[in-house]
């Protein structure tokens, strides 16, 4: 994962080939991403969007080809599942997420992140008692709390209302402005500048 690249190129994907039970998902896929740019991965269900994102995140390792990040650690990944514990409250979940990043965050930073995803008042509610949409927003609150130059978001807008989508898009633009990189899979049309589209055929 740790390979220093020259210039502003953050991600270099070379000839990624991936087969899943004898079915070729994608073959010889190569692309690169500069800092401050975004990549929207679209394609019908089962085209391998999630697999590609998991490959870029470093989770899925059963592929040929190379993925080189100009990055110390792993990207920030938000997958299909929200990634929050039902037994823990929103605040505890975010505290744990911060622990994983070695960032000691104060309580009001967490509350601030929660209010950004319009969950103020839900700080001490156990995630199990929340709706799926709220749980996903607790997961997405990580975007406001943790600092990681690269975000990989798999269908970030599912179960999110239109107002939430606008907020997240605006947050993504902020992140890109700060020389961050965002790779996300979604079929929604979102207004994000400096964005390339990658259509997965099949």
């Amino acid at each position: 994962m740790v390979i220093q690249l020259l210039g502003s190129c953050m991600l270099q994907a070379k000839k990624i080939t991936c087969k899943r039970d004898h079915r070729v998902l994608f073959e010889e896929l190569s692309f690169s991403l500069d800092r401050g740019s975004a990549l929207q991965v679209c394609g019908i269900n089962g085209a391998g969007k999630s697999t590609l994102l998991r490959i870029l995140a470093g989770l899925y390792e059963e592929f040929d080809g190379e993925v080189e990040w100009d990055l110390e650690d792993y990207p920030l990944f938000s997958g299909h599942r929200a990634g929050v514990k039902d037994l823990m409250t929103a605040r505890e979940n975010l505290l744990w997420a911060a622990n994983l990043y070695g960032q000691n965050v104060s309580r009001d930073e967490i509350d601030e992140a929660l209010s950004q995803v319009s969950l103020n008042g839900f700080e001490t509610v156990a995630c199990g008692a929340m709706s799926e949409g709220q749980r996903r927003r607790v997961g997405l609150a990580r975007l406001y709390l943790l600092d990681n130059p690269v975000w990989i978001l798999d269908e970030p807008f599912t179960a999110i209302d239109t107002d939430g989508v606008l907020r997240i898009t605006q947050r993504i633009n902020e992140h890109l402005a700060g020389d961050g990189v965002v790779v996300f899979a979604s079929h929604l049309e979102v207004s994000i500048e400096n964005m390339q589209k990658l259509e997965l055929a099949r």
Partner: protein
Amino acid sequence: MNILLATIRRDLLLHFRQPADILNPLVFFLIVISLFPLGIGPSEAVLSSIAAGVIWVAVLLATLLSIDVMLKGDFDDGTLEQIALGKQSLLVVVFGKVISQWLVSGFLMALMSPLFAMMFYVNTEGMIAIAVGLLLGTPTMTLIGSIGAALTLGLKKGGVLIAILVLPLYIPVLILGTAMVESAVFGHSYTGHALWLAALLVLSIGFAPLATQMSIRISLSQ
């Protein structure tokens, strides 16, 4: 270092908020042990001779029952992915999870074991030997069990599979533990056995978390 403590605190918190996952194996341990006198008959000579074997096998099975809880919950709700992709090393978090899992399973059984030894008419030296043996043996079981749990993450019928994968690896601990109690009951010294158990423990502390961490990454890769 604080990620280790944070992991232990988090896991213990989760265990106490959902005690069923922890209490069930302990109740299982209790029931299995009390089945044997019913099955074999209450004669003192027979019971005291099989006490060590029964208690150790019961602990073994109870540990196996409770081991996949350690990772399955986090795997199902996606938090294991976040841990694997966090900046903190997965090895330390795995180690913390194993410690917290041991505290709520093996450690408790080791503390309760003198009670059950009494049910089997074991003399006091035997009781102490069982408790010490279990204190040294159960962490090794949890460590080795965590490898099996990590390998079978995400499999539908993972529970039984863990037993098949991991039980053969428990045999050295079982042999040493039961032999230790046997020599204690006859009044011989059992420090040799205890040292061997400790050596196995140190070996699995060294290797098992490494294997578990790699196995988690393998299981997440799907």
